[in-house]
Structure formats: C-alpha cells, structure tokens
C-alpha cells in the first residue's frame, strides 16, 4: 500500500506513467530526478504519511524501494 501511494506522488511530481515506476527504480538514474525532485517527493511522502524523514535517511534514499522501507520503518 505504501508503494502505491509513493508511486502516485512520483507520478505527480515527475509527470511519468505509473508503469515506469517500480521498487527497483533509481530516482536519479532511472526516473531522471534531480536533487530538488527527490526532495519534493520526500516532502510529499512526509505529508502523505504524516511523518518526518531525517536528513540522513533522506540522503540514503536511492531507489523507490528504499523510500518504501523508510516509510514503513517510520510508520511502525
């Protein structure tokens, strides 16, 4: 469920098709993000899930799967 919500945020921010986004997708290499795009997605996730992601955790997010893990850890 977290993945679907994160995917929706990515689709909205990057204007890509949903089927372009998988858990293995790398934000910068595969989805063409720049650092500001990544930050926009992270802030979107913070708002969607009502959590705060630390700067250290934010820097460690490389793939969509990493983002899912961070969100699940924060929720739990």
């Amino acid at each position, binding site marked *: 469920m977290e993945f679907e919500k994160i995917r929706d945020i990515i689709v*909205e921010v990057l*204007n890509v098709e949903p089927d372009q986004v998988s858990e293995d997708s790398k934000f910068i290499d595969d989805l063409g993000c*720049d650092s*500001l795009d990544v*930050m*926009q997605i992270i*802030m979107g996730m913070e708002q969607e899930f009502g959590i705060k992601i630390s*700067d250290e955790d934010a820097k460690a997010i490389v793939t969509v799967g990493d983002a899912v893990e961070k969100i699940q850890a924060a929720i739990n």
Partner: protein
Amino acid sequence: MELVKVALDAMGGDNAPGAIVHGAIEAVKAREELFVYLVGQTEAIKAELNKYSGYDEKRVEIVEAPDIITNDEAPVDAIRHKDNSSVVKALYLVKNGQADAIVSAGSTGALLVGGQLIIGRIKGVRRSPLAPLIPTLDGVSLLLDCGANVDAKAVDLVQFAKMGSIYMENIMGVKNPKIGLVNIGVEEEKGNSLVKETYPMLKNSNDINFIGSVESREIPYGAADVIVTEAFVGNVIIKLYEGVAGALLKRVKEGFKSTPVSIMGAALAKPALKKTLKGFSIKEYGGAPMLGLKALVVKSHGNSDYVEIKNSLIQCIDFKKQRINEKIEENISANSEVSK
C-alpha cells in the same frame, strides 16, 4: 467581488517589515479586490500597521510566524526545517488554498526552492523559471530563466519561451511577443550544444513568435520581448545589466560635478534626466514572477521599497484575473510530447 488573496512575507528583505507593511497598505488602498496576509512577527507588524490609517482593515490580516530565513542559510534545509518561518508559513497559506499567491523580498534561494517543493509545478511543466522584467529602450523585456534552475535542457528552454510568451501577452499586453534565444551570434549554427539543440525546437514551435538568436548587447535595445536562456547565463546577464547601469550613472554624475560649467549644465538637465531614468525604473512593475508553479510566486528585490512591494502585490491580481496558470497548463498539455 472575488478577492485576490496574497500571502506577503512581512519579514523578508533589507527594509522589512517597514517597507513591506507600507507597500501592503498602499496596494490595499489602490485595489479594492486585494486581500493581504502579513506573515511574520505579530508585534513588529502591528507596530508598523499602527502608523497607517484610512485603509480597509478587513482586507489585511496578520499571520504569526516567529522565525526568519536569512540569506546565508542553505535553502533546502531551511525550507524543510523552519516550519515557523515567515516564508514557509506564507508558502503553506498558498499550498492550502487560503492564498492565491505569495510575495517575498527575502532569501531568493529559499523562495525558489520553497515554491517548487511546497507549492509544486503545474502538471507537465518540467522546470519553473524566475522571470524578471528588465528595462529596455522599447519598454521592458522578460528575461527567463534568471537563476532558478541549473542545467536546463532544450525542452525546458522551449517551455520557458511558451510561458514567457503567455505572460508578456496577457500581463504586459504585448501582442504576439517576439521570442529571442540568447546566443553569441545571430546565425543558426552558432552557440553551445544547448543553444544548437534549442534553436530548431523553438523555430518549429507554431504557437510562439520566435525571431531567432539575440546577442546580449541587443537586449537593452529591446531586440525581443521574451529573452530565453538558461539560469547561469540569465543570472550573469541581469547582474551585469545592473552593474553596468550603476557604474555608468556614477560616471555621468562625476562628470556633471567636475567643473563649475558642468554643474550648471547638470542643474538644467536634471529634470529631463530624472524623467528619462524613471522610465528605466523596474520597481514600477513589481518583482519577478516564478512561472509554471501551481500558484504565483513573486520574488521582489532584497532592497525593495514600498513601491515595489505594492506593485508586486498588484501584479498578483492581474496574474489571477488573466488566468495565466490556466493558459500555461493548456499550452503545456497541448504540447505534452515536448514536456516529457
């Protein structure tokens, strides 16, 4: 009458909150459809508001924000962590639909980053350029991008051209605005790889009036209504523009003061010079809009006086009334193959 609500960063800029509050009061007096949120330190704002009377107090509201983001703070960190700063609070008023636009004379970096992170881009817009009006012999031109995005691609420059064209036509009333691409020569084969890639794309865009390359020395003569370039070059152009103008004016003043005869000449010429130079004063138009975001973000100069703040606020009314964002969205979605 539908009000246009603007979140004004009352603490941003060298002359805050005095000039900011003064500008808000003058704008509210000038336009009855304007509502202003003064976002910042309540007591400091109240102290300034108490200096004025004769304005509609129902159209001015203070929103408490105790913190300030300064120019020496890292923009992304500040936007993420200073939730109680005047600019972040003002951005969220827009994001949450309480305000239609934001005006700030504070940290440029924080506003540009915050605009993209908090308000977000219109669907299909890849990058949002900062687009100041610059004075020319013909009036004004729109220069974009002036510093919002590094490493823009050709598709971004094409979008900048289209957004700039919509702005100049609808806000400045320029019919079929001339679009020029900044280059080091006018021939199509000149330029770096970005310019060479962008040129044919602009040439093949049927919905804009692309006139070709423009050399930077032609910009002050009004060579084009919309000057398209990437952020690094745009920023160099505007700063050199300001620097040369200031230095030249200083030298002219020194010349006028150099001999008794020239001093007399200066006294005679002063009224005409003043009138001429007023035509080159950009504060009459307000700050620079950041185009392509879901709501209008206006960056006023750090040293804005009340006149520039007033005009920045008034600009927001025209932006909403002319449905600029809807027009940008229609244009970008109609050209969605370009925006991917």
